[in-house]
């Protein structure tokens, strides 16, 4: 089992995102890759970008490791009727390729920007 623990889920640009990976009963996992990424969802094709990565060794079957990222300034988390841009921290175990993801908000005041329409 792999888990991402974050003290909070909303961040202002340039704020430090401190997190922790906790895992148990992983015998094959040699390392974790934590990714700070954004992706879009909506009516059109999905887009995504990994903006920062941390690689962590995970030799024992049970354990925990800390990681940190700096919240980017751009693009902010936003949502409208046609598209949402969602920031997330993704954790991938190597070599299995198992993946867990936690959505976060990166925007001024820590609140997702909501686009209004007609």
């Amino acid at each position, binding site marked *: 089992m792999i888990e991402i623990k974050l003290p909070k889920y909303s961040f202002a640009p340039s704020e430090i995102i401190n997190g922790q990976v906790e895992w148990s009963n992983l015998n094959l996992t040699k390392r974790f890759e934590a990714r700070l990424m954004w992706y879009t969802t909506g009516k*059109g094709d999905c887009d995504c970008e990994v903006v920062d990565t941390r690689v962590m060794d995970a030799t024992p079957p049970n354990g925990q490791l800390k990681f940190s990222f700096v919240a980017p300034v751009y693009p902010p988390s936003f949502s409208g009727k046609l*598209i949402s841009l969602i920031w997330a921290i993704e954790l991938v175990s190597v070599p299995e390729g198992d993946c867990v993801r936690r959505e976060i908000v990166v925007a001024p005041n820590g609140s997702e920007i*909501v686009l209004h329409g007609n």
Partner: protein
Amino acid sequence: MATSSQSIRPITGAQVARFNPFAMQHVESISFRFPSGDWESQLRKLREQHWRGAIVGPHGSGKTTLLLELRQQLTGLQEPFEYCFLARERAKRSAELDRLFRMAEKGHLLLIDGIERLSWWQRRRLFRHANRRSRIVVTAHRSCGLPVWIESETNWPLMKNILLELVSEPNSRLLATGERLFASHRGNVRDTLRELYDHWSDGGFSLPPVSCRGRT
């Protein structure tokens, strides 16, 4: 003329794209439903056809979905293949064709989406390239000179099943709208889902965002 404060309406949480169950990321996670059999039997059929076959069906019936799933199956089987979505522009198509001919010569299985974008002559050249042993699976709207592997068809029970996969507890309004749109789009699942996206984002179904079953 209306002022901006008069013309702009706030949207509710349920209406935003991230909670729309008809968003592309959720739609793309829907698997192709075989008319009969399963992957094992369908791959057996394709082997018996010497890996030459066409997925034949109308617009929005799942041909591309099935070809992409075949690509995943072949990756699992460690079978060398080349996937190609044929461009509409002639110049790009020509370069793609040259590449495909080279791959066919190397013995790769070719997966080609949109074979009808090729001229009759280009198709003939591709199907007969190298020799008759070349392996090729294509999507087409009608018979195209290759044996049919799968005929993709749609009907309302299939469409309803897809709606139930996307929305855990669809209300009667959503189902009625889905059935009406499915009929007006003449069985085109893709176009029906795109229009349902708009209905959802306009708040037409009064369902909470938690009903969305999509992947995270």
